[in-house]
């Protein structure tokens, strides 16, 4: 069984190499066949492993597979080995499953693009790195995957590199991620220094010896969380994600919604033992997650670009996942990540289908009435919207409710803020939905003429994802609704150690839980109704004249001026500082030192060069003198 593991990341890697090497000699059909096939193979193998784990006997909760020893020096050794336990198996199912659907979708979406082959190369490479990230059994391998997906993300955001704005967006994403990665690297180094190993198994078993609240663990977890903040777009490093929408829509769906951005969530869940040992960090995680969830949700209300709305919604949902993690409800975080992967991928692909049908129009003010033009997209998008809004029995309901229930048990304030964020979600999502699909079409005649439903290769993934968004929640039906929470049982071995450390969670009694559920669903319906009355009954369309907006609205519309603030607070002072450094430190001090060293070396070089006279007699003389010196030196050395 374990031997299969190696093939899972290998398949997309081979796909990448194959397409890369045979670039021009493959037709588009073959490219799509190999690219999708590679991911499909990975998916099948992952499923085999997944179901094996599901039926595995008690205590046999993970497969490991060591491909080879990678680097060994002194007491530092890393092997290229994979760990498939319930957590990584769940991730692998999402990555390969959703990844495969998005690959298929991309065949239709990207068919007329010049960079068709390049696109699939990158996608396969991304899947490879993402699998490396979740399957690695040590921090180094995770880090390789982490950087690899960052690279792919960079390449794919700037996929249409002829547009300078897109390049800038790609650079922004890359740089912001570097800030986070710095934290991650420092965290991993600190882990190595503390535990003397960077293998998960060693680290976690040794972590048991540390007391709860240990200072060094707190530092480690905070540093790791900085990495997660960058990758998963949390405050204050979230601004890259909305800009990342410059990439092709399938990329937004795959990388910037379903998989890569959830790497931070995965990483924290993977390190649950360490995090449980540091309640302080967990508090920070909760606060940042909560703030991000609310903040991004308010921004999303006023956005008019269909992908930007979804991007902010992603940021907000990621915030909710971090809230769950911060509350120590790791399973819940993973659960929401899984359901989010389904419905957010669906929404993005649906948006892609809309954009495709509308001749690359992304502004929802120019859409409307698409219901009759794009029936399949309409239905699937509706399913996605209902799921994200948290209407039972759609997937989002179960996972979001679980987060809120956990929050309520923890603190009423967390619950209130989380609930507001999730209500805002349902409002802006339905605002988006109504503006896009209902009412009259506001596009120009020319565009209107061309509106068409997308090809099969795009609608079938939509339908599959819609089904998943519909039933995905049933893997975690809570006890109060008569379920047994299969996901919880499945993942419990991974979190067993931290459950032991944390002690018993106080659970809500069933009646409170039911009341909360009813309350939130009721309020959500109210929000939907408000959205309906504004955008369908009154047919109001957001104005494009910024001046006519109210102050608050303008603030939100401009995303709280965060980008501008970063520009003023960080970038401009940095420029100023760099100018100062340039003129004073650099020119006066460093330059002289560097040039001095350079001159000294050049002088030495010029002088030593002269020793090389070319005269054989001299050479031999020099050799003999050296021999004499060496022979005599024994008495001195």
């Amino acid at each position, binding site marked *: 069984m374990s031997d299969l593991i190696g093939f899972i990341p290998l398949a997309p890697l081979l796909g990448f190499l194959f397409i890369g090497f045979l670039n021009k000699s493959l037709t588009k059909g073959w490219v799509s066949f190999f690219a999708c096939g590679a991911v499909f193979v990975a998916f099948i193998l992952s499923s085999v492993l997944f179901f094996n784990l599901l039926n595995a006997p008690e205590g046999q909760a993970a497969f490991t597979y060591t491909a080879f020893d990678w680097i060994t020096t002194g007491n530092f050794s890393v092997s290229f080995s994979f760990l498939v336990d319930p957590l990584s198996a769940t991730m692998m199912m999402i990555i390969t499953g959703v990844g495969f659907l998005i690959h298929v979708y991309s065949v239709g979406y990207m068919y007329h693009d010049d960079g068709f082959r390049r696109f699939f190369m990158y996608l396969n490479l991304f899947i490879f790195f993402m699998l490396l990230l979740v399957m690695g059994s040590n921090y180094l391998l995770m880090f390789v995957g982490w950087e690899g997906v960052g690279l792919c993300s960079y390449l794919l955001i700037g996929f249409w590199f002829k547009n300078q704005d897109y390049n800038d967006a790609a650079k922004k994403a890359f740089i912001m991620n570097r800030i986070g990665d710095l934290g991650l690297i420092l965290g991993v180094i600190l882990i190595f220094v503390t535990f003397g190993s960077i293998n998960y198994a060693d680290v976690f078993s040794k972590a048991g010896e540390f007391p709860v609240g240990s200072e060094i663990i707190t530092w480690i977890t905070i540093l790791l969380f900085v990495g997660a903040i960058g990758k998963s777009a949390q405050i204050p490093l979230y601004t890259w994600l909305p800009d990342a929408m410059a990439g092709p829509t399938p990329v937004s769906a795959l990388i910037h919604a379903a998989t890569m951005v959830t790497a931070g969530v995965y990483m924290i869940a993977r390190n649950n033992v360490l995090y449980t040992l540091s309640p302080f960090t967990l508090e920070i995680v909760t606060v940042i997650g909560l703030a991000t969830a609310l903040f991004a949700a308010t921004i999303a209300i006023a956005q008019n670009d269909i992908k930007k709305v979804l991007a902010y919604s992603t940021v907000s949902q990621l915030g909710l996942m971090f809230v769950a993690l911060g509350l120590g409800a790791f399973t819940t975080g993973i659960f929401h990540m899984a359901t989010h992967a389904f419905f957010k991928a669906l929404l993005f692909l649906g948006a892609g289908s809309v954009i495709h049908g509308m001749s690359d129009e992304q502004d929802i003010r120019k859409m409307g009435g698409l219901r009759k033009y794009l029936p399949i997209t309409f239905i699937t998008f509706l399913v996605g919207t209902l799921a994200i809004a948290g209407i039972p029995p759609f997937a989002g309901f179960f996972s979001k409710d679980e987060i809120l229930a956990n929050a309520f048990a923890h603190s009423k304030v967390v619950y209130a803020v989380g609930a507001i964020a999730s209500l805002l979600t349902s409002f802006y999502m339905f605002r988006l939905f109504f503006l896009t699909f209902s009412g009259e079409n506001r596009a120009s005649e020319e565009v209107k003429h061309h509106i068409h439903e997308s090809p099969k290769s795009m609608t079938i993934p939509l339908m599959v994802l819609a089904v998943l968004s519909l039933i995905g929640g049933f893997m975690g039906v809570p006890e109060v609704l008569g379920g047994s929470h299969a996901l919880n049982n499945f993942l419990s071995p991974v979190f067993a150690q931290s459950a032991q450390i944390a002690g018993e969670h106080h659970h809500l009694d069933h009646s409170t839980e039911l009341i909360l559920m009813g309350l939130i669903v009721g309020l959500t319906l109210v929000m939907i109704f408000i959205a309906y009355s504004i955008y369908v009954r009154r047919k109001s369309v957001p104005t494009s004249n910024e001046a006519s907006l109210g102050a608050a609205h303008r603030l939100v519309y401009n995303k709280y001026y965060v980008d501008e603030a970063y520009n003023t607070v960080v970038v401009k002072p940095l420029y100023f500082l760099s100018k100062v450094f340039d003129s004073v430190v650099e020119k006066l001090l460093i330059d002289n030192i560097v040039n001095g060293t350079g001159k000294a070396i050049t002088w030495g070089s010029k002088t030593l060069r002269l020793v090389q006279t070319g005269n054989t*007699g001299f050479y031999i*003389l020099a050799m*003999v*003198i050296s*021999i*004499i010196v060496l*022979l*005599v030196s024994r008495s001195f050395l």
Partner: protein
Amino acid sequence: MTLYAFYFISFLAVLSALMVVFSRNPIHSVLYLVITFFCVACHYLLLNAQFLAAVHVIVYAGAIMVLFLYVIMLLNLNKDDESQKSNLWKAGAVITSGLLLVVFVGALRGAEAESVSFASSNNTGLVKNLGRLLFNEFLLPFEIVSILLLAAMVGAVMLGKTHMKRAKEIAHEKNGRGSVASARGIGNIKELTK
């Protein structure tokens, strides 16, 4: 008796070796070298290495020295052609080699203390014993020397052949890289013949 012979032969060897260096006429140098070789052969005899002594005389004093003489004659070297090194060079060389001598003597003085005994008899250096050693223990080096000799021979032949003909042939093949490379070759030949 042996001791006196040793000192005499050694004295002769060192003297003739010095004369090799100091004599102005190359022919004389070579002749002194022959004497040095003979002295070394005598040393071999004193050490019971009769076969080696014989081979030494035949190969070095016989074949190689004659070759030297031929070369010197062909090059037509005489006193005036000797390149004169400056006195500084000479002083440097003398001091350095003197130092080397001192250092070696210093290093080797304690050699008597070494305890390894070399069992030797009158028969040690006879052809029979030597042959037994060469064809048993040292079979591989003995055979492999043939590769060394072959390589040297091939090299000598290769360097000895004339090349002008081929170089001109290449010059006529005006295609691809050959032409450029050969053009360069021709250029060099012209420089050489200037």
